[in-house]
């Protein structure tokens, strides 16, 4: 069955939202950092790029990213994708996470100064 990059991205988005928790940290700045760093490291793993591991935080982002990529072996189409498509798909994935959980989020606590 033919799958578009968009439908693949949807599948991965649903997987993250259902099975992982890192994207739900409680502040806007924290969600931005989590999405950027973990999706960034996932993209690097998928594209066989060099990964920065200078700090404990980097290692933690990488552990989350690597765990997801290992679990995504259940999506065989992922292995067949070229680097351009992977990068496009992962940037859309990050954009969608940012949209749902940051920019268009209905969670009023994200920016509550008293929280």
């Amino acid at each position, binding site marked *: 069955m033919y799958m578009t990059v968009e439908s693949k991205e949807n599948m991965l988005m649903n997987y993250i*939202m*259902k*099975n992982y*928790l*890192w994207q*739900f*940290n*409680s502040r806007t700045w*924290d969600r931005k950092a989590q999405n950027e760093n973990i999706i960034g490291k996932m993209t690097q793993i998928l594209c066989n790029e060099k990964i920065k591991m200078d*700090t*404990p*935080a980097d*290692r*933690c982002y*990488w*552990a*989350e990213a*690597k*765990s997801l990529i*290992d*679990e995504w072996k259940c999506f065989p189409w992922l292995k067949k994708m070229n680097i351009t498509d992977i990068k496009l798909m992962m940037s859309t994935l990050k954009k969608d996470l940012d*949209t*749902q*959980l940051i920019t*268009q*989020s*209905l*969670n*009023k*606590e994200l920016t509550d100064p008293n929280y």
Partner: protein
Amino acid sequence: MPYHQFDCSKCISERLHHAVDKEPNENLTDALPLGYLKTIPGTLSERGCAYCGAKHVIGTPMKDVIHLSHGPIGCPYDTWQTKRYISDNDDFQIKYTFATGMKEKHIIFGAKKELKETIKESFRAFPNIKRMTIYQACASALIGDDIDAVAKEIMNEMPDVDIFCCHSPGFAGPSQSAGHHVINIEWVDTKVGQVEPEITSDYVINYIGEYNIQGDQEVMQDYFKRMGIQVLSTFTGNGSYDDLRAMHRAQLNILECARSAEYICNVLRKRYGIPRMDIDGFGFKPMATSLRKIGLFFGIEDRAEAIIEEETKRWQPELDWYVARLKGKKICLWPGGSKLWHWAHVVHDELGLEVVSVYTKFGHQGDMEKGISRCEAGALAIDDPNELETIEAMTKLKPDLIATGKRPGEVAKKIRVPYINAHAYHNGPYKGFEGWVRFARDIYNAIYSPIHQLSFVDISKDEISQDKGFVTRQMLSDKNLDEAVIKSGEMHEYTGEYDSVKKLRGKKYPQYPMTKKVNKKKEEIG
């Protein structure tokens, strides 16, 4: 995702935005229940207060501590032993409750003298306990008794004791969640960094947001120790006061209940650079993912894989026996906070249950984001429901089981819906691989209880036959099962021990030699 209007709450217009029906092909930007707001006057909430949230959720699970309430006796007594946070030191912290027992005269004249006397008397009564926590209740907070000054005086007079003061009176916020926040921040601000721990492993964690309900912490600690990981402290179930003063020396914070303890994780991350890793300890797959992530962080994935393989092999056939009999049953996940999202996906994916509703009493919108993302379309998500709303939901949704606390649980029983205790558990622990089988067994026992079937008989009018009617759970559960499943030689009922935690105490673990040079000295520096 449209907002859900309860018939019984039409007269309370504010309630409309506290409930949402999850629809297919919609997402969190379409609707999200409001959360963590003051309970609306006129609606009967089932929440706890900020004092209870600080003391009885977070503070009291610390095991080697006298936990003292400065307030009327009703505050500690009425909230005492509402949770089964056991410990490996003979459950000291749940056997006794301490209070100054303030009365009307103290509201006029103050109760600092009583507080000081009570502290001394408590330490005299338990001379082996040298640590204390003191909690403000509404009465002592309103009159302004300076508990910090009294604690300081005592610590000067008794240099071998250490006291932590918590300022979270009942009125300090909308629910117990406010108390979680207060005690997190007060602990990290006043106590962390005061003790230098002995480091015994290359891999050191704090285990945070875990309260050892019926032994959950000890199950998880067993996995960590098998991986050669040192659990420096647990915040706070089965945790030691002085270990929790040394949290700053961990390499990684493992966070379980983000609702009650993300605050301290976030401060430890900012102040000491310790990363935060959120995990799920419930269910086979989430448990395996969690162990793998921790293994990856430390570069010991092989140790995690060995545990996952061993535990899955041991417990999968027993889980399968229950899953075959639970498939398609409808459940309302109505816990207090974090379990709504810890369980929302995995009871469906691994136990075959249909989640028809999730609710939270004191959760925030972030908890609803997680819970709604994880449950299937069709579920009704409710924030801080009142009793009439829960009855209306149960009547319409017709669940086979409610997983909730004992107060709403008793209401459910009255309308013939069985419940299992999601807060203190029925026959836990529920964490880990074996724990998940125990959870499945409790669900099975609740749904197929012959007593529950009898509750539908109205003895005032129904005819009661005396020569038939003998049933067992299995007669009920196996009625429509395939013969192949019933006769399966692979699947079988739970075979673990009645007490699955006892065997973990005093267990010997593999010794992994340390390779990194670290501070091995333990001393108090505060």
